[in-house]
C-alpha cells in the first residue's frame, strides 16, 4: 500500500502504519480494541438520537424514539472506518454506508468481517454514487481518503458524514475538517468524535491507557494533536461551504454555526457531548445534556454534531 498516491493528503503515513499493524485485532472484543467496542454503541446512540431529534425538528412530528431504522435510506460516509465497527452498526440501522480508510489492511479486515454477516449486504467497492435511492441498507468499503473521494465525486455526496477518533490522527486537521464538511449535502449532518487537549485527557488516554494500564499500544495518541471542543466550534463558526465549482474554504453561503450563546451553539446547529467510561458498569455513557458536569465531561472524549445549513 502506498499512501503517497493520495493527493494533497491529510493522511499521516506513520499513523497508518500503526493502525495497519493493529488491523488483525479490530474484531477481538477482548483485545486492544476492547474500549472501542464498548464505546461504539454509545456513539451510535448519539447519532441515532440526534438524527431522530432533527427529523422531528424538520417534520414537526413525533418520530418514534426507539425506531430501529433511524438511518433508513440515508447515504452515510464513515471516514477512517478502521475495522468497520461503526459502519456495521450504521448499516444495521438502515444506512447506505460507505466506509473508507487509508490503510488497505483495515479495509480488507473490515470487508472480510462484514462478508460473514448476511444482514449487512456487503457490496464490493469501488463505491459508485447513485442518484436513485436504494431501498435496503448496504455497505461498501473502499481503500481511499476523504480528499480522493471529494476529488472524484464532488461535494455534497452524503446525508451523513462520520469520522470517529480520526481527527487526532490526521496531519492537517483544518483541511481534513473542510474536506469532510464539503462531502455533506445541504441540510446533512457531520458527526465527529475526538479527544480534547486537557491535562485530564493526557492523564487518561496517554498516561493511564497507554503507559500504565497498557490498554492500547504506547504511541497511539499524540497529545499535541488533540482538539478542544471550543476549537471545533470555532472552526465551524468560520466555515461556509464553498459555492459549487469553487474548491477551498470560505466561499459563499452561511457559516455552519451562526453564533455561540455562552460558548454553546444553538441546539439546531451543533452540539458537543462528553462521553465517559464508567468503570463499575464496564460501559461508556453519554454525559447527560445540561448536567452540572457537562463541561467537565467534555474534558476527554467527546462527540460533535454539526449540521450543514440549507443553502
Amino acid at each position: 500500500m502506498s499512501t503517497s498516491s493520495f493527493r494533497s493528503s491529510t493522511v499521516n503515513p506513520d499513523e497508518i502504519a500503526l493502525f495497519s499493524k493493529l488491523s488483525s485485532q479490530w474484531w477481538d472484543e477482548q483485545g486492544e480494541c476492547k474500549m472501542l467496542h464498548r464505546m461504539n454503541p454509545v456513539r451510535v446512540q448519539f447519532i441515532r438520537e440526534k438524527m431522530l431529534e432533527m427529523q422531528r425538528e424538520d417534520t414537526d412530528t413525533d418520530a418514534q424514539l426507539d425506531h430501529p431504522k433511524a438511518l433508513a435510506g440515508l447515504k452515510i460516509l464513515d471516514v477512517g472506518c478502521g475495522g468497520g465497527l461503526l459502519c456495521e452498526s450504521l448499516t444495521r440501522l438502515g444506512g447506505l454506508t460507505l466506509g473508507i480508510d487509508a490503510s488497505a489492511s483495515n479495509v480488507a479486515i473490515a470487508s472480510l468481517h462484514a462478508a460473514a454477516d448476511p444482514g449487512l449486504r456487503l457490496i464490493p467497492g469501488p463505491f459508485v454514487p447513485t442518484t436513485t435511492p436504494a431501498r435496503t441498507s448496504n455497505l461498501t468499503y473502499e481503500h481511499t481518503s476523504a480528499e480522493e473521494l471529494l476529488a472524484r465525486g464532488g461535494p455534497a455526496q452524503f446525508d451523513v458524514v462520520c469520522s470517529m477518533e480520526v481527527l487526532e490522527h490526521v496531519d492537517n486537521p483544518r483541511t481534513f475538517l473542510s474536506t469532510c464538511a464539503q462531502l455533506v449535502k445541504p441540510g446533512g449532518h457531520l458527526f465527529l468524535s475526538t479527544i480534547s487537549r486537557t491535562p485530564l485527557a493526557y492523564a487518561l488516554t496517554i498516561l493511564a491507557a497507554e503507559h500504565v494500564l497498557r490498554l492500547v499500544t504506547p504511541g497511539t495518541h499524540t497529545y499535541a494533536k488533540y482538539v478542544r471542543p471550543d476549537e471545533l466550534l470555532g472552526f465551524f463558526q468560520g466555515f461556509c461551504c464553498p459555492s459549487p465549482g469553487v474548491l477551498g474554504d470560505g466561499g459563499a453561503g452561511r457559516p455552519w454555526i451562526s453564533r455561540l450563546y455562552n460558548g454553546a451553539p444553538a441546539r439546531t446547529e451543533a452540539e458537543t457531548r462528553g462521553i465517559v467510561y464508567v468503570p463499575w458498569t464496564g460501559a461508556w455513557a453519554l454525559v447527560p445534556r445540561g448536567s452540572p458536569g457537562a463541561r467537565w465531561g467534555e474534558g476527554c472524549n467527546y462527540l460533535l454534531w454539526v449540521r450543514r445549513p440549507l443553502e
Partner: protein
Amino acid sequence: MSLLTRSRLAASVCKRSGSTGLRALSTVVHEDSDVVIVGGGPAGLALASALGSSPVVQDSLKITLVEASDLSKVRDWSVASDSFSNRVSSITNTSRQFLAAIGAWPYVDERRTMPIEEMQVWDGISDARITFSATEAAPAGTTAPEMARLTENLNLQRALLRYLDTTPSIKLLDKVKVNSIEKEQEEGGGWPLVHLSDGRVLRARLLVGADGFNSPVRSYAGIQSYGWAYDTQAIVATLNHRPRTHFEPPNTVAYQRFLPTGPIAFLPLSETVSSIVWSTKPPIAKALTASDPAVLATMINAAFRLPEVSIRYLHSQILEAHAAGTPLTPQQILEETSWRERSHSINQYSAYSLSALGKTAPGGIPPEDSDALPPFITSIQPDTIASFPLRFNHADTYIGGGDGARTILVGDAAHTVHPLAGQGLNMGLADVESLFRCIQNAVANGTDVGSHTALMPYARERYFENHKIMSAVDKLHKLYSTTASPVVWARSVGVEVLNELDTIKAAIMMSAGSSRRSSTQEVGWSVAASGIETLARNINTAKALGGGVLGLAGAGAQSLLKQFANMGRS
C-alpha cells in the same frame, strides 16, 4: 460435539483452500437465523415470547427455537380441573410482572394457579417458627397482595406456546434434535452452525443455550461449570386433602418444615389440592416412592406433625421393610404413627393428632392450632409420585468466548439450584428478562447481538445476582441439615426473635418489593443481597468455633430466612 470431529472437519475444510465463497461447498447449505434458542422449556419459550413481543426486535432479527420433544403435547395439554401436574413452581411477582409486560401472562389459566398469601417455615428439631404474611408487607393503599403464585410448569409453558401462536414470525422447530454444533470454518466468521436431526443446518448469529442442566450449547461454548450433587432426592406428588373450613384461613398458606434429612414443602394449588416437594436422603426417597401411595400420604401427614425422633424412627421402619422386600401396608404405618403419637402424648383434639384427624368427619370447628399445619392429606393423585436428584451447579461464565463465541446461557443451562426456595424457574425468567433487554438495546444501537459487547451487560447483571441466591439457598440447606444442638439452638433463637419483630419483618419485605425498578406493589426477593455475605461467614464461623459464637449462627439463620420469606417456592 467432540473436539475430534471438530478438528477433523477443520482439516478437511482447510485442504480445500482458505478462500471465501466455499460456504456452500464445505457444509450443507445452511439457513441464517439471528437468534437460535436451543430448548423449549420455560426459559427458552419465555425468551422467544419476549423477543416476539417487541416489534423492534422482530423487524430486525430472525428468531428460531429448537426443541427435541413434541410441543403440541404441551400446547394441547388439558386435564380435569381438580387434577394437577406434579411439577409446580412458584412464580414470584417479579416474574409475573415480566410475563405480563410481554403479554404472555393472560394466556396462563389463572383458575389453575394459587396465590400464596402467607408462608410458614419451621425448624424440624426445635419447632422455632417464622411466619411471613403478604399483608404485613403491603404498602399503604394496596389491597391483599400475594407473595407469589403457584403455577404448574405445564400451565406456564402452554401459555407461552399459545402466546407464541400469535407471533408467527418466531419459528418453532419441535421434534427436532440438535445433532451437533460446530464452529463455521470461515475467516472473519466463525459463527456456530447447528446441525439438526432433520438434516437442516442453522447458522446462528447468537446461539442461546436454554437447554437445561446437560446443556449441549454449554459444552460447545467450552464453558466449564462448578457444582456438586447433593446427597438428596426430591419427591414430588400431587395431594388431595380436605378443604379448609370457614373458621380457618383459605388454602393460600405455604408450609415448609426443615427436617435434618431435608425440607418438606406444602404448596397449595386449589382449595382441595396441593403439591408436595420433599427433599430427603436417596434411600428414603426410594423406599417412599416405592411404597403404597397411602403409606406416602400418611408419611407426609406425619412429616409435618410428629417430633423429629419419630420421623427418624418411621424412616428406619420404612427402610427396613423396603430392604426386606415386604413394604409396610397403609394399616401398619397408621398403627405405627398412632403409637408414636401416644408415646409423645399428643393431645387428640389437636391438629397434630393424625389418628383423630383421620377418623373425624371433615368440617366442624377446627382445632385451635390448625392454621399452623397444612390440611390433612387424604390421598395422592394417581401417577403423580416422582423423584429426582438435587444438585448445585453454576456455569463459570454465561457468555462463550474464543472458539465458542456467539453463545449465551440462560436458565438451568447456566445454573441449577436446590428447590427449597423455589428460585430455579424465577432465576431463569430473570435471566430471560435481562437478556431480552440486552438484545433490545443492541438492536436499537445497531450492535451485532451475537457480540460480546452486546451480551456483556446480561452477564454483569445476572451472574452475581444468581450466585447470591444460589449460595443463600445452599447455605440454608446446610444450616438446617445439622442436628448439632448449639447450631439448632442458635438458628432457632435467631428465627424466633425475628418472628416477634413484625415491623422489621414488614420493613424487610417492603424494601424487597420497592427495590424493583418499576412497582411498589410487589414483594420481590432481591433483598438477598443484604444478608448474604454476613450469612456465609457466620455459618462457617459458628461451625468452627462452636458455643462461643452462637449468636452468629442465629444471625445467619435470621438473614437467610429474611430472604427466604421473599422467595417463592417450588
